[in-house]
């Protein structure tokens, strides 16, 4: 009797079936003839797709009926690794189909660099860049990052400026971490109450925990630690007139080397210092950094032309403590330091290539 029933069911051409076409669209077939005359509202009521562990809420999407097949296309593609359930209710009978798209096995990411790269950092360091080998997850980064004072072994309380709008590059392979500026700036309350985040003469360790996942949910391969000593605060404006500059020879592609005298911001030096020819046209080339971002080299794409060339430095270039060209991070109104600020957006230095 049981066997006969099974045979009968299989032979019933009207038994509705559910499937997922190309992992993109849920299709219901074998619908009764009466279904042709139904409306969009009926289709929506008949076919619901939900997350299996959140069955109360239907996915947003588009329903359509063609050639007797009812289709549901989700507003956003089904995500790999999640269990979805399609529920078809026709003439009081419910058919369900659970499905999960395969999640490709991914290599775990890792931290590739942290800038500033030096092992001694200024007490008023404002910014770190953390570079990853692959695009990472945004949204909850601060729980994966700690700063420990190695001198007393304690974690620093609230060391970073925790922003909802995390400061990622568009590819999410580099994130910017700001030390709470309220604990760097003098005479503001957080610093008065808690003192500076980094303290001169002490040693600290910045740890990126492997709990941080990439954009597809795979955790990092390992924790990453950067240990550094803290030196005195740098409250000096950037002064390009004091940079060392070794002019290359004409006709070759030797690097133009500039010594800043102190580390500058690893991100900004890549785009705010340019070399211009006699006509003021930017010369194409490749920038490399050395000596913990205190040295900048530029190799031109074409051989150096002879003559007077110009190094153009945008005034919003900063060092890791936020000091700018001609203007320190904090301007002391009573004892101004640095050069007077004028309206120009850049400064220049010229050099001769022979």
């Amino acid at each position, binding site marked *: 009797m049981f066997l006969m029933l099974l045979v009968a069911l299989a032979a019933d051409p009207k038994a509705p079936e559910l499937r997922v076409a190309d992992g993109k669209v849920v299709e219901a077939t074998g619908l009764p003839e009466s279904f042709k005359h139904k409306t969009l509202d009926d289709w929506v009521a008949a076919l619901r797709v939900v*997350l299996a562990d959140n069955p109360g809420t239907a996915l947003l999407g588009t329903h359509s009926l063609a050639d007797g097949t009812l289709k549901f296309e989700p507003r956003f593609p089904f995500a790999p690794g999640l269990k979805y359930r399609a529920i078809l209710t026709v003439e009081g009978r419910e058919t369900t189909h659970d499905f999960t798209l395969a999640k490709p096995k991914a290599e775990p990411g890792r931290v590739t660099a942290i800038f500033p790269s030096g092992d001694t950092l200024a007490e008023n360091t404002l910014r770190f860049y953390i570079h990853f080998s692959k695009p990472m997850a945004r949204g*909850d980064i601060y729980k994966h990052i700690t700063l420990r004072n190695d001198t007393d072994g304690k974690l620093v309380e609230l060391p970073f400026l925790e922003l909802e709008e995390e400061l990622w590059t568009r590819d999410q392979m580099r994130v*910017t971490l700001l030390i709470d*500026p309220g604990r760097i700036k003098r005479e*503001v*309350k*957080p610093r008065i109450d808690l003192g500076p985040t980094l303290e001169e003469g002490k040693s600290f360790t910045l740890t990126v925990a492997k709990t941080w996942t990439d954009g597809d949910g795979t955790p990092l391969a390992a924790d990453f630690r950067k240990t550094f000593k803290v030196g005195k605060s740098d409250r000096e404006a950037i002064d390009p007139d004091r940079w060392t500059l070794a002019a290359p020879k004409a006709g070759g592609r030797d690097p133009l080397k500039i010594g800043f005298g102190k580390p500058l911001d690893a991100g900004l030096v890549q785009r705010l210092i340019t070399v211009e020819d006699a006509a003021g046209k930017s010369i194409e080339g490749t920038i490399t950094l050395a000596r913990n971002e205190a040295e900048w080299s530029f190799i031109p794409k074409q051989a150096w032309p002879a003559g007077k060339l110009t190094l153009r430095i945008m005034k919003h270039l900063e060092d890791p403590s936020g000091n700018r060209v001609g203007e320190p991070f904090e301007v002391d109104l009573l004892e101004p330091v640095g050069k007077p600020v004028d309206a120009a957006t850049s400064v220049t230095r010229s050099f001769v290539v022979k």
Partner: protein
Amino acid sequence: MRFLSALMLTVAVAACAVAAPAKKGSLELKSVTALAFNSEGVLFIGDSTAAKVYAVETHEKTDASKGALKVEKLNEQIGGMLGVPAAQVAIADVKVNPASGTVYLAVRRGSGPSAAAVILTVARNGKISEFGLKDVMFSVVDLPNATDKNRAEAITSLGFANGKLIIAGLANEEFASTLRIIPFPFGDKAAAAGVKIFHGAHGKYETQAPVRTFTTYKIGDAEHVVAAYTCTPLVKFPVGELQSGNKVTGTTIAELGNRNRPLDMIVYKKDGKDFVLMANSARGIMKISGDSLATNEGITTRIADKAGVKYETIEGWKDVVQLDKLDDTHAVILIDDKKTMTLTSVELP
């Protein structure tokens, strides 16, 4: 009276027509980090990844939505609609369309670089819908120089005052940042001009610092921006000073102190008096009297805790991460206790 109503309606329609966005089309958002409305129901959408702000006509009728609102497990519901777990849902902003009373949410689905940006609306009965961006009337403004190599700029807050859109942003490279301002309707080659914003600390040091969140508030006849900086001072400066290329120094009117992140701000009127409400990571909700904003001449000497304007902390409002004015007597707040999110209306304190 009937004549007066008709007259007012005409004025409103005329104002709408002037502000009508430029073209009909479909928007593809790359991200959505901040929202704002003008009084005619034009929705401004801050897309940090695309370095653009869109202005979209919502066409919502006046007072379409009334009454109390409460949606529990909001992130689970949205996750269910977008097909991801609640943990993959982030709400960057909550704004109420003043033309209709409908609540708008800026939502991110996913956490990788290909995460989707969605705008959802919440009706007073709790029904959540997508605000479609196909075939809408819209105009767009570019944020000049916002992207170059690895530079990106997070739009942290949007506001509208005196016919101008004000855009606060924070770059992922330089700290010194600009507030951007642009008249609306946007012109053909619209670009938001930058204003350098400084703030002082007790009259001695000043820094060109980024604004974390702000609101606009009329002091006397002059519209002001009341802003919280990343390093916590609360400052004010007149909107009129926000001219392209200007350097504007805000007057510090309060020190919010440590362990504190200013999150969101609104201005409202109660019993004939103005107040500013600020959601804040450490102190819950702060209520600041508008009178003291107007009269306070700024902090120039070091003062003990609660320096500057007087404020009170509103008890019972915990874990509020977003707030906006719902109507004359209510606010809508988003509560995130790190387990679940609740969107609810509350009476203005």
